[in-house]
C-alpha cells in the first residue's frame, strides 16, 4: 500500500524530471542498465558519484573565478569535466549550461563565467535535490519490500 504510493510518487518525480529536461535519455539508459543488467543500486551509485563530483567541481570553479587573475585553462578543464560527467549521467540541463560556460571560458569572459557558474550551480542544486528525493523514495520502497 505504502509501497505503491511511494512508487507512484517516484514515477511522478522521474516523469517531471524528464519532462522538464532536467535529465535526458542517457539517464533513462542508466535506469535500463540497472533493471535489465541486474545491477541494483547502479543508478544510485552513479548519481551519488555525480553529485559529489559536480559539487567538488563547482567549488573549484568558484575558487578559480575568484582569483584576481583567472586561469581560464583550468576553468575550462573543470567545466569540461563537469560536462562529461553530466552527459554521462544524463543531466541534460547542467550539460547544456556547461557548453555555454565553456564558450564563455574560451572567450576569457570572466563575468560571463561567473554568471554561468551561478546558473550551473542552481541547475545542479535543483537536480541534486530531485536526485536525493528519488534516492530516498527508492530506499523507502526497498525498505518496505
Amino acid at each position, binding site marked *: 500500500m505504502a509501497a505503491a504510493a511511494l512508487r507512484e510518487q517516484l514515477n511522478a518525480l522521474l516523469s517531471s524530471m524528464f519532462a522538464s529536461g532536467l535529465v535526458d535519455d542517457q539517464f533513462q*539508459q542508466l535506469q535500463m542498465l540497472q533493471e535489465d*543488467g541486474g545491477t541494483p543500486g547502479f543508478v544510485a551509485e*552513479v548519481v551519488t558519484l*555525480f553529485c559529489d563530483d559536480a559539487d567538488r567541481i563547482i567549488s573549484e570553479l568558484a575558487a578559480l573565478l575568484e582569483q584576481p587573475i583567472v586561469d581560464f585553462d583550468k576553468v575550462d578543464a573543470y567545466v569540461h569535466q563537469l560536462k*562529461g560527467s553530466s552527459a*554521462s*549521467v544524463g543531466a541534460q540541463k547542467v550539460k547544456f549550461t556547461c557548453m555555454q560556460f565553456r564558450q564563455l571560458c574560451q572567450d576569457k569572459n570572466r563575468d560571463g563565467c561567473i554568471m554561468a557558474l551561478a546558473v550551473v550551480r542552481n541547475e545542479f542544486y535543483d537536480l541534486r535535490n530531485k536526485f536525493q528525493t528519488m534516492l530516498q523514495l527508492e530506499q523507502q520502497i526497498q525498505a518496505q519490500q
Partner: protein
Amino acid sequence: MRLDERKAAVGRVRDQFPVGMRVLAVDDDPVCLKVLENLLRRCQYHVTTTNQAVVALRMLRQNRDLFDLVISDVHMPDMDGFKLLELVGLEMDLPVIMLSVNGETKTVMKGITHGACDYLLKPVRLEELRNIWQHVVRRKFSNCERANIDGYEEWTRPSNADFDHVHSQTPDQCGRPSKKRKEYHSEEEDEGEESNGQENDDPSAPKKPRVVWSVELHRKFVAAVNQLGIDKAVPKRILELMNVERLTRENVASHLQKYRLYLKRLSAVASQQASIVAGLGGNDPFMWMGAFEGLQGYQSFASSAALPSFSPQGLLNRNNPTSFGIQGMSAYRPIQIATGNSTISHSIGDPNKYHLSLPGTSSRQGNLAQGLTTSVGQVQLTQKWFHEETDDLSTILSVSGRANNGVPGTLQSVTNSHLLQHGLVECRQDKVVIQPSSSGSSDRLEGTVGVSSSLMDSCASQQRVVPLSAFSTSASPMNGSFCSNDIAELGATSSGGTNICPSNDLRVARDNKVGATSFGNVILLSPDTVPNQKYLNFGGGSNLRQSMDGGNTDNLLNPKFIWSCLPTSQPPNLIGSHHPMSQRPNNGNLGGTMVGQTTASASTAAPQTRIDMFISGDTPTPKSASDLSFPRVHSELSSSSCSFDGLLNSIIKVEKDDASFSDDLGCDFYSLGACI
C-alpha cells in the same frame, strides 16, 4: 587481474568471442568511468578500469597480453589521452578507442591521427559499445595478413636460416597475432610461449617493461648491429655494444627480429619494383633497382647457409666484417649497381677501400674499419662460402685466382665449370678471359674491350636483362674496358654467383661479383698486378698508375700493397674519388680511354667525379682492385651501405645515379654488372 579471472576470461573468449573481450577503460571522471564500466559489462566484456592514465599504462606494460582493447578518455589530468594513445600504439599495438565529450573535428582528427581506431562521444551509448569488438577483430586480421605475407616471403627464401624459426611458426604467431593466440591458450601454454617469445619477438611477453625504441636508441642498435654484422649480431653482443641501461637481452632480441623483418620488407618492396622494371626493360634507373631486388632475392636464395636474408639488403654492408659482410655487400651491390663494386673493393681486401666505403656511411665507419680488417680475411671466407655452395665455385675461385695470374686458359677452364651452372657463367668466363688480357696490358685492354663487349653481349643474353643489352650497345667501347675490369673481378666472383643465382642473372652476377671480387680481386691483384696497377692508377691517377705499374707487381701480390698504393697515390677518400672519376671517365670515354689505357682514364675521370662523389668513399678500393667501371656502382653501394634505414634513400640515390649514368655508357655497364 588474477589468474582465475584471466582464465575465466579466456574461457569465455574461446566460447563466443565478443563475450569476455578484455577491455581496459581509462577515465579520470569517476562518473563517466562508472557508467562506461557498466555499459561495457552489459556488453559482456571483461572490464578493467582505472582513473589514471599512468596506471593504465603501467598495467598495459606489465600485462599487455591481458587486454584486447583500450578505451581512454581524451582529457585527463595526469596524462593526455593522446599521449596514452600514442604510447599504447607504439608499445602494445592494441586498438585504442578515444572517448570525449568534445566532438570537435579537430580533436577527433587528432585522435585518429594519433592512432585511435575509433572516437566515441560522451555520453557513450550501449549500441556503440556493442560494436567495438570489431576493432579487435580488424586489428587481428590485419596483423594476420601481415604475418601471412611475411611468412610467405620467408618461405620464398628458404635459405635464410634466421627466418627458419619464423617459418616454423604459424602466421598468426607473429607479432600481435601471437597475443591473440595466447588468449586462446591455457595458462601453461602461455608460460611456455613466454620463454619462446623472448626469442621470437613476442610483444606480449609480460613482466619486462616495454622499451621505447627512441630514434637515439635505435641508432645505437643499428650501429651495434652493423658493427657485428647482421648475421653475427646476437642480442647479447648487441646489448653489450649498445651499453644502455635498463635494456634487456629480450628487448634487443625483439627489436633485432623486428629490424630484420623490416629489412626484409624493404627488400621485398624493392624487389617488386625491380621485377616490374625488369619486365619493362630498358635503361631506367629502376633497372638497377630490379637488379638490386633480384640480388636480394637471389641472395636469400643462394645464400641459404652463408648469406643472411637481411644482409642482402644492405644490412650486410654495415655489419659484416666477415664473409657474410662481403656477401651482403655484394647483395647490396646488385641492388645498387654501385654497391656491387664497393663490395668488390672490399673483397679485394683493401682496408683502405673499406674505410673509404665506410666513410660514405658515416655511422658505419667504425664498423667498416673492422670490416676492412676482416675484409682480407673475408676473401677467404667468401671462398669458403663458395666452396660450400658449390665445388665448382670454389674451383672457379681458385681458377680465377690463377686466371688472374694471366692465364686465360685456366680461367676458361674455370668458366667451363661455371658454364655448367648457367649461361651467366659463360659470360663470366668471357669476362675472366678479358681480365687476364686487361691485366696483360693496355693493348690487351683494347683487345679486351672487344672481348668485353662480346662478354657483355653474352652476359646480356644470358641475363636476359634488358639493361645489359643496353649497356653493351651504349658502351660497347667502354664496355670493353669496363668489362675487362669488371669481368676480371666478376669472372671470379660470378662463377660463384652463377651457381648461386639461377633465378636472376643480374642478381647472380652481382653475387658472383661479390664472391669473385673478393677472390678475383685478391687474385687479380697478385697475378694481374700490372693491369691491376693500371686500374689502381685509374683510381689514384694516371701518374700514380704508372708508378704503380712500376712497383705494382709487388703490390699485386699482396692485397695490402694495393691499399698502400692507393693511399700513397692519394688519401683513401681521394683515391676513392679518383677511382670513381677514372671509372666514369672510362664509361664516358669508354672506347677511347679504355683502349688508351688507364692513363687516359685519369683524365677522363674528372668529368665523372661529381657523380662519384658519393661513391668515392666506397669506390676507391673497389675500383683500384677491380675496375673503374665499378666506381659508380660503388657510389651507389656506399649510399646503400649507409644503413638499412637508408635503403630507400639509397635506392632513390641509385635511381638518381642511374639517371645521371644513363647518359654514360658506364651507366649501362653498371646495370649490366648489377645484372650480372
